[in-house]
C-alpha cells in the first residue's frame, strides 16, 4: 500500500524532472543557436504567467466548463455527509460540493490545494451508487485533492504548452529569416541559422503534439492509481471503490458536455478512448484499476 504510493510519487517527480530538463535544454539550445536568448526568456516567462493563471483559475474554469451547481447540506444530505466524513478522516477542510446534472455517472475534483478544493458528482453517479460505492468514489476524488494532483496536472500542462509555443515561434522565425535571405542575398551565416530554427521547430512540434500529451497522460494515469490506492486507504474498504468502478464499466457512457482538457479530472474518462488512443488516454483501463483494488482488498 504505502510503497505503491511512494513509487507513484517517485515516478511523477521523475517524469516532471525529465520534462523540465527537456524544455530547459531546448530553450538553451535555441537561445544559443539563434543568439536571441532574450526571446526564449520572454516565451518562458509568458508560459510561466499562463501556468500561474491556470493555477489560480483552474477550479472556477473547470466548474464553468461542466455546468456544475454548488450544493449545501440540505440539498443532498447523503453526498454532503459522505464528503464531510471523508474530510474529517483526512483532516482536510470541507471542500465545496457540486452536482452536475448529467445521467452519465462520473465525478471530479479540482482546486489548487485542500483549502480551495471542489468535488463534484453527476446526478447519474448519485443514482446508481450505494453508500459504500459513493464513498469509495468520493474518497478517490478527495485523494486527488490531498495529493495535489490538480497542481501537478497544471504544471505538466504548462510545460507541454511551453514547448508548443517555443516550437511555433522557432518555425515562424525560420520562415521569416528565410524570406529575409532571399530578399537581401545575405547568405552564409543566416542560412545555417534558418536550418537550425526549422530543426528546433520540428523537434519542438513533435514534443508538444505527440510526446507532450503522452507524458501528461502517463502522469495522469499514475495519479489515478495513486488516488485509487489512497482512496481505499481512507475508507479502509477497497471493495467499495472496486464495485463502483465495475458499475462505471457497466453503465459508463460519454458525458453530455465533455471536453478533452477536462478529461484528466474525472474519475472515469468522460470521452471513451479507442484502443489506438489508449497510450494518450488520461486514465488506466477500468479493469486494471479494479484488479489492483481487489489485490489490495485482502491486505486490510
Amino acid at each position, binding site marked *: 500500500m504505502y510503497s505503491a504510493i511512494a513509487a507513484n510519487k517517485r515516478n511523477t517527480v521523475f517524469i516532471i524532472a525529465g520534462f523540465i530538463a527537456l524544455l530547459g535544454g531546448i530553450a538553451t539550445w535555441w537561445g544559443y543557436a539563434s543568439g536571441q536568448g532574450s526571446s526564449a526568456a520572454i516565451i518562458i516567462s509568458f508560459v510561466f504567467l499562463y501556468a500561474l493563471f491556470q493555477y489560480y483559475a483552474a477550479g472556477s474554469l473547470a466548474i464553468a466548463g461542466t455546468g456544475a451547481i454548488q450544493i449545501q447540506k440540505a440539498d443532498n444530505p*447523503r453526498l454532503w455527509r459522505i464528503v464531510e*466524513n471523508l474530510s474529517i*478522516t483526512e*483532516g482536510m477542510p470541507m471542500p465545496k460540493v457540486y452536482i452536475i446534472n448529467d445521467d452519465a455517472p462520473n465525478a471530479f475534483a479540482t482546486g489548487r490545494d485542500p483549502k480551495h478544493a471542489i468535488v463534484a458528482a453527476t446526478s447519474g453517479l448519485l443514482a446508481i451508487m450505494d453508500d459504500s460505492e459513493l464513498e469509495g468514489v468520493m474518497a478517490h476524488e478527495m485523494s486527488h485533492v490531498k495529493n495535489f494532483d490538480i497542481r501537478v496536472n497544471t504544471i505538466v500542462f504548462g510545460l507541454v504548452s511551453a514547448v508548443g509555443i517555443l516550437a511555433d515561434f522557432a518555425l515562424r522565425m525560420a520562415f521569416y529569416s528565410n524570406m529575409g535571405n532571399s530578399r537581401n542575398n545575405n547568405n552564409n551565416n543566416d542560412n545555417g541559422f534558418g536550418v537550425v530554427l526549422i530543426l528546433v521547430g520540428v523537434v519542438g512540434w513533435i514534443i508538444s503534439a505527440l510526446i507532450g500529451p503522452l507524458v501528461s497522460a502517463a502522469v495522469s494515469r499514475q495519479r489515478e492509481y495513486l488516488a485509487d490506492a489512497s482512496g481505499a486507504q481512507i475508507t479502509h474498504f477497497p471493495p467499495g471503490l472496486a464495485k463502483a468502478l465495475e458499475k462505471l464499466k457497466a453503465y459508463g457512457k460519454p458525458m453530455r458536455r465533455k471536453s478533452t482538457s477536462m478529461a484528466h479530472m474525472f474519475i472515469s474518462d468522460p470521452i471513451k478512448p479507442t484502443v489506438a488512443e489508449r497510450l494518450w488516454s488520461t486514465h488506466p483501463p477500468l479493469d486494471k484499476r479494479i484488479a489492483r483494488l481487489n489485490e489490495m482488498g485482502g491486505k486490510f
Partner: protein
Amino acid sequence: MPVGLLVVLAVVVVVALWLLGAYNSLVRLNVRVDEAWSDITVQLKRRADLIPNLIETVKGYATHEKSVFEAVTKARAATISGAALGNPAAAAKAEGDFQGAMKSLFAVAEAYPQLQASQSFLNLQAELTDTEDKIMASRRFYNAGVRDFNTKIKTFPTNLFASSLKFNARAFFEVADLAAIQEAPQVKF
C-alpha cells in the same frame, strides 16, 4: 590537518541541520495528534448533547425502563468526563460502556412500534448515526496521526534522541467493540 578539520566541521554542520529538521518534524506530528484528539472531543460532546433528547423521547413511550435510562445517562456522562476527554485509554473504556448502554436503549425502543414510527425519534436516530460516523472518521484521523508519530520516534535514527527530548509514543484510540459501533443504529438517508 586543515582538510581533516574541514571534513569534521562539515559533518557536524550536516548532523546539526538534520537534527533541527528531525526535531521540527516531531513537533509537527505531535501537534497534529493533539489537534486530531481535540477534533474527537468536539464530536464526542456533540453526541453527548443528543442523548438527553433521545432519552426524553424514548421515555415518552417506554415509561417502565428506568434502569436502562439511568445506565445510558451514566455512560453518557462518562464519555465527556474530564478523564475521558484527556486520555484515549479512558475514552476507549467509556466508549465501550456507552455503546453497550445504547444497545440496550435501542433494544427497548424495538418493543415500541409507535416510538419507532415517531418523527422526532427517527430524526434523533439519524443525527446520532451521523455523529457516530463523524466520531469514527475523526478517530481514524487521530489514529493515523498517532501511527505516523509513533513510527517516526521508533525508527532509526530518530529513536536515538526522541525519548531524551521527551517525545513519547502516543496512545491509539481503539474501541474494543468495534463491530458494534460500525453496525450501530442503521438509518438510511
